[in-house]
């Protein structure tokens, strides 16, 4: 599909990851300076110039498995440690959040505004670090250069590519269920009211013209929704009102993220199908991945600074339950060498009937 999709996918998923980690760091009362260091380290790794160069090359999307490795590495680019179950959960939350944002984008081009919302928030996390701020601004420039001139048709193709990537993922997320943006069957609510995409008129009018181009008839019809015209277009500048709320941080201070996750088995069915099917292209993908991750500068924990463990579950019992019901992809065995530098060790696959 579109070969311009990977940067948008990576940056938005990365943004969601940072929102979640930030919230968990606060919830676990990790000291402020340590928490800031974690976020700084991850963000500076994400926006590393060499890494961004690789990312922005026109290329097809990686498989879900391959992309997951990138985030595994990224999440461990600091003194923070996540165990297997927490990493699984983090990734599920990230993907469902971005899937929701892509699905609800009024116009295909609005996915760029969603990306800018994430970048704006990321800049908020690293206000005290001018070097990293500069890196993020440079990425912003690159996004504007590449995506600023794309046509509506090209954005439609990007949107379709992203939706195909997220197809059949129906993990139920507590915060979405509570806000009623997701149904209990895992499907997102698509409202039939609210602001229209920029450039779309309120449905309900049929205009007839004669051969001379003069309007001869104007009839209204009931379209079934309750829409209003968009007040203004979101800004695509470095600074500006994005108007769109998708991509902003939904894990605010006052709303603790409930970590009970339901629907794991439904997701497993989809995952199992994918993992069992043989992938003859795995080797080529690993090579691409090597180039991408090669650009990442992972800081090894050194000196007197001790690492600490971040937990995405509120109780150990919950975590244990989740670990037993999750399967892990056996093909990661060949990637053991990647993770030996301080990442999470790969586990054996539990085959499901």
């Amino acid at each position, binding site marked *: *599909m579109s070969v311009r999709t990977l940067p948008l996918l990576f940056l938005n998923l990365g943004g969601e990851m940072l929102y979640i980690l930030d919230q968990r760091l606060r919830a676990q009362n990790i000291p402020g300076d340590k928490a800031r260091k974690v976020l700084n380290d991850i963000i500076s790794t994400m926006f590393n110039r060499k890494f961004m160069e690789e990312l922005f090359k026109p290329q097809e999307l990686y498989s879900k498995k391959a992309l997951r490795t990138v985030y595994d590495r990224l999440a461990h680019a600091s003194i923070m440690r996540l165990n297997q179950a927490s990493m699984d959960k983090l990734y599920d939350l990230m993907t469902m959040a971005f899937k929701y944002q892509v699905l609800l984008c009024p116009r295909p081009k609005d996915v760029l505004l969603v990306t800018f919302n994430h970048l704006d928030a990321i800049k908020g996390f690293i206000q005290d670090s001018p070097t990293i701020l500069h890196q993020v601004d440079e990425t912003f420039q690159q996004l504007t250069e590449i995506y600023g001139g794309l046509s509506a048709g090209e954005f439609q*193709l990007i949107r379709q590519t992203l939706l195909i990537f997220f197809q059949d993922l129906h993990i139920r997320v507590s915060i979405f269920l509570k806000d009623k943006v997701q149904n209990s069957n895992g499907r997102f609510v698509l409202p039939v009211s609210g602001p229209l995409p920029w450039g*779309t008129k309120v*449905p309900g009018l*049929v205009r007839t013209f004669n051969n001379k181009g003069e309007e001869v008839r104007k009839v209204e019809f009931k379209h079934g929704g309750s829409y209003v015209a968009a007040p203004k277009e979101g800004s695509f500048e470095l600074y500006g009102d994005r108007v769109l709320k998708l991509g902003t941080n939904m894990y605010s201070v006052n709303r603790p993220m409930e970590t009970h996750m339901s629907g794991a088995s439904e997701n497993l069915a989809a995952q199992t199908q994918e993992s069992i099917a043989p992938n003859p292209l795995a080797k080529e993908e690993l090579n691409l991945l090597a180039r991408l991750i090669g650009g990442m500068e992972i800081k090894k924990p050194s000196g007197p600074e001790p690492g600490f463990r971040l937990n995405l579950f509120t109780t150990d019992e919950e975590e244990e339950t989740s670990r037993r019901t999750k399967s892990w992809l056996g093909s990661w065995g060949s990637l053991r060498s990647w993770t030996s530098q301080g990442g999470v060790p790969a586990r054996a696959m539990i085959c499901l009937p």
Partner: protein
Amino acid sequence: MFRRERSIPLRGSAAALCNNLSVLQLPVRNLTHFGVVHGPSAQLLSAAPEGVPLAQRQLQAKEGAGVSPPLITQVHWCVLPFRVLLVLTSHRGIQMYESDGSVMVYWHALDAGDASLVQAVFARGIAASGHFICVGMWSGRVLVFDIPAKGPNIVLSEELAGHQTPITDIATEPAQGQLDCKPLENRDCVADMVTADDSGLLCVWQSGPEFKLLTRIPGFGVPCPSVQLWQGTVAAGYGNGQVRLYEASTGTLHVQIDAHARAICALDLAPELLSAAEDTFVHIWQLSRSPEGGYIEVEHCHGECVPDTQVCGARFCDPSGSSFAVTGYDLAEILRFSSM
């Protein structure tokens, strides 16, 4: 008024493409065939009148070089004078099968030669015109294949240049429609094919041993993902939710409908007009010719909301337009509606 009928289950969910439902009506055999793209595979199934599924088959996109398995962009039945072929377009090429999908009779690999590194290469847009099958390309070119009455001796006979951006959809006059056409002064100017692209441009053609470009209808900044042609009228659905009807031979705009709140993903015309969009709505419109001015009139008949579903395909299931089927992104079933 329409009511929901029994859904037909799919093996895999429908992909978020446009025009992602093809229907082949076989009234003589009391069967309806459905075709839906899942991703790297497409599913064909046949159903009895009450929607009882009878047989199903999955087709894969033919492999080629690349990191990931190739994705299918569209599946469509082409009804020709002596045979029916099933055509599948993907990011690698064009596959043509016998109508039940059992035998591949032709494979055309895409030549990515001219594409720059940043362009996606694919075929998309399929229609039958007489004994030709026309398929659109990412480059804007339209390939015209000459199909023999039987056998695999399919030949690429022409490449039409009219578009500069990827083709989205192609529509042709149904064969029987041409007999009922209102009398045209200039019989040399029979518009029987329309092609649409990502920029919203429409090209109207006359088919023949050599296809002739009759008129161009410019876009206005949004893609035209879906187009239909019936009795000299072009119906076009756009990315901003508008449906426009034009006189095919002249390109004159006759009707403009602010029909949907999101991009249109599918149209069908036979004789009512059906429009479906990502806003979860399907609308049915009645078309008629006004007695005085002879211009096209449109009246809204029915609107159906498919809750929480980003519709990606919709078609009438019978010639009178009394029933239709709908597919949605992430939905592993074909929804059916029929009038009460």
